[in-house]
């Protein structure tokens, strides 16, 4: 206190002066007694604070710059000091905070926790912490962590507790965001039918999501801390080593991608296929985590197998069809030549006639085999019409019974309804008969054969796997109580020439006919078989709501004739045989190697009565085009077409209705009948 302070005052009262004097004395006394801990010196350039005790300035600077709230409290929670950050957490100024209790800013439940934190019973040396929620003056709630430690003061001083308050708002928000992301990921994985797993390579622990546990079948074996082995144990015993090797390899290669089978008791086959994909993540250049997903791909693999089977059958069918076509021509040449030769041999030459008969029987058997090949390759003529399978079954049950023999009983349960499917009844009979004979052979010691019908509907997804159209199908189920088949055998039963029967007992074409016929009818076949449990074969034929109309059967008469026939065929051998056969029937002939040449002949000559052409010929104009041209431009000329297979030619560009179709190989009698019918038709249209 300086003298001028008093001089500046305007006539200070005595009382005032006394008061100032008393204050000055008290100040001096206090300083003398050590009741102050800092002295403020007023310099002209500013004030200086001289701390008499601990020079705590650097620490204060640090504390003031902290992003955490720092506060010293009395044992009752009264704020002795706080940094700006702490006051800001509560939305207050520091000046208003000091001297106030923090309790009103706490939730009731948290107040107890804080009381414990401040309690003198707490271990003074150890740090204590609690997560509480602070209520700001603006009403917002701030989650914070309070960590407390006692400030050691000299004896006799009140307790002071130092507390650091860390704002958890951002951390909480991040953990919420993380949780939300995790949830989205889980939902996405669930929708994809996948589960996730995460291997900590440093700790050797595995985290497996609930979905992944389900897919791997782990939930059945009880959960808990997972070791690295928990990922390989669900797999089939003999595949576990490979699975472990794949995981180990992935640590160095960085990628994991395999499909293996896990045990699955709930499933009939005892296992499920799973697809495991993963990636390795590095920390400081060292593999730290192997993370990935797992999905059940059993259904997909099943579909792939079915599709592969369908594709294989398609390819084999194409090949077989090509062979059958050439084979037909060969049979045609042999059979036709035999016909011609036979007529040249005297009827009293019994030995020669016997050989002719044997040779012709061989041709017939060849033709019959060829017919089955064509059936398999779906290139036979199908007379599709609405068929009630149940009626058909009852119609030839006697024949079936005879084929099955006495030791096998036949059961034909009545279906709920008489469904109609679109099919060729004769081929369907053959197919069922083929299945029945196979079933009989699978039951050497007798058994039971059940044939029943049902109706089923295929979804687009199921249809895709069967390479069929979605829709309704009439199922003809043929079930035996026989020996059953291994999966390997079951996969091949429709392959042409595949047979498990002894040499000479079967052609290996029976089931191929079944397959080809059903496919050509627009249906599909499914096989269920297990060794010792019998076999069930389902023929699924397109359902129709049309009702059968009895088709009139006409028998063509055999006749000889006369006139001039233009024979068109690119195969010179076939052509020669045809010419010979026609000659034997009394016709004169003119030959052409293809359709263009045939048109030239027609244009040049007017004495052609019949055009007899092969359907399939090289060049731009095939037999059907030739037939249409002839019918349009030469109404008086009859047309007969011959083909090894014609089914595939039917469609929007089929043969004209009054054109006769002859199937190779044909007999002389069939040729004569076709020519006679064609000529009648052509003449009739004049």
């Amino acid at each position: 206190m300086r003298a001028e302070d008093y001089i500046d005052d305007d006539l200070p009262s005595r009382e005032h002066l006394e008061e100032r004097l008393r204050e000055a004395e008290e100040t001096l006394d206090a300083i003398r007694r050590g009741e102050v801990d800092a002295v403020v010196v007023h310099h002209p350039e500013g004030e200086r604070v001289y701390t008499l005790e601990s020079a705590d300035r650097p620490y204060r600077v640090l504390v003031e710059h902290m992003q955490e709230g720092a506060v010293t409290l009395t044992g009752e929670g009264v704020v002795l000091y706080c940094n700006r950050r702490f006051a800001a957490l509560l939305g207050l100024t520091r000046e208003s905070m000091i001297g106030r209790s923090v309790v009103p800013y706490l939730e009731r439940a948290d107040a107890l926790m804080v009381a414990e934190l401040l309690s003198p019973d707490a271990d003074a040396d150890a740090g204590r912490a609690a997560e509480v929620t602070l209520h700001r003056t603006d009403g917002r709630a701030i989650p914070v962590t309070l960590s407390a430690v006692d400030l050691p003061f000299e004896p006799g001083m009140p307790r002071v507790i130092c507390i650091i308050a860390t704002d958890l708002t951002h951390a909480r928000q991040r953990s919420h965001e993380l949780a939300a992301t995790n949830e989205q990921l889980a939902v996405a994985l669930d929708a994809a039918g996948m589960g996730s797993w995460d291997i900590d390579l440093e700790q050797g622990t595995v985290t497996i999501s609930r979905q992944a546990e389900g897919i791997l079948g782990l939930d059945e074996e009880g959960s808990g801390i997972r070791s690295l082995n928990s990922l390989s144990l669900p797999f089939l015993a003999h595949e576990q080593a490979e699975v472990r090797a794949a995981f180990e390899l992935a640590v160095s290669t960085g990628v994991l991608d395999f499909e293996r089978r896990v045990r699955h008791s709930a499933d009939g086959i005892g296992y499920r296929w799973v697809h495991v994909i993963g990636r390795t993540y590095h920390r400081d250049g060292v593999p730290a985590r192997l993370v990935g997903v797992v999905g059940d791909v059993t259904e997909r693999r099943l579909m792939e197998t079915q599709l592969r089977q369908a594709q294989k059958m398609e390819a084999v069918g194409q090949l077989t069809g090509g062979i059958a076509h050439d084979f037909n021509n060969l049979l045609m040449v042999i059979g036709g030549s035999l016909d011609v030769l036979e007529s040249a041999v005297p009827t009293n030459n019994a030995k020669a006639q016997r050989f002719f008969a044997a040779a012709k029987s061989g041709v017939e058997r060849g033709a019959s085999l060829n017919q089955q090949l064509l059936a398999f390759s779906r290139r036979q003529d199908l007379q599709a019409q609405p068929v009630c399978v149940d009626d058909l079954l009852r119609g030839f049950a006697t024949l079936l019974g005879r084929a099955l023999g006495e030791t096998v009983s036949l059961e034909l349960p009545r279906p709920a309804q008489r469904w109609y499917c679109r099919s060729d009844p004769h081929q369907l009979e053959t197919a069922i008969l083929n299945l029945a004979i196979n079933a009989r052979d699978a039951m050497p010691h007798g058994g039971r054969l059940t044939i029943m019908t049902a109706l089923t509907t295929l979804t687009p997804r199921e249809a895709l796997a069967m390479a069929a159209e979605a829709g309704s199908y009439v199922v003809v189920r043929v079930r035996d109580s026989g020996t059953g088949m291994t999966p390997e055998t079951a996969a091949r039963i429709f392959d042409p020439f595949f047979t498990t029967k002894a040499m000479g007992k079967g052609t290996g074409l029976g089931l191929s006919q079944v397959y080809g016929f059903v496919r050509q009818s627009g249906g599909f076949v499914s096989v269920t078989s297990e060794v010792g449990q019998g076999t069930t074969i389902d023929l699924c034929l397109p359902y129709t709501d049309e009702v059968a109309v009895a088709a009139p059967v006409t028998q063509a008469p055999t006749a000889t004739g006369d006139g001039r026939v233009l024979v068109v065929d690119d195969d010179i051998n076939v052509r020669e045989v045809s010419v010979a056969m026609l000659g034997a029937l009394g016709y004169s002939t003119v030959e052409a190697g293809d359709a263009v040449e045939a048109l030239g002949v027609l244009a040049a000559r007017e004495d052609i009565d019949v055009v007899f052409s092969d359907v399939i010929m090289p060049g731009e104009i095939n037999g059907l085009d030739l037939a249409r041209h002839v019918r349009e431009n030469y109404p008086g000329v009859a047309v007969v077409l011959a083909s090894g297979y014609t089914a595939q030619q039917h469609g929007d560009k089929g043969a004209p209705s009054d054109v006769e179709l002859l199937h190779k190989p044909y007999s002389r009698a069939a040729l004569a009948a076709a020519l006679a019918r064609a000529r009648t038709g052509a003449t009739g249209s004049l």
Partner: protein
Amino acid sequence: MTSSPPEIPSSAAALPHYKLRLFITGSTPRSTRAIENLRKICEENLDGRYELEVIDVYERPETTRELQIVATPTLVKVLPEPLRRIIGDLSDELKVLAGLDLAPRHSQQG
């Protein structure tokens, strides 16, 4: 300081409203003790009718000039007038009460 403080509507409307400033130096022991002591005294004697500003002279050294603070802790009674400074850690309650005009100063001596 001639203007009178705004009237605080309360049950103690007849009693004067106190405006106090406590000059301290952070968390030093006497400053701490002064805060504690003052708080207790205010709660017991000035419940609801005081406004306390605790000023850290480290933070705002310039504030000491106006009120002629020479040492901390120092409590200043700004209102009601007359302005009065009480130096020390305020552990002598009677002295503080006397300084705040809450108890006759002479009773201490008598």
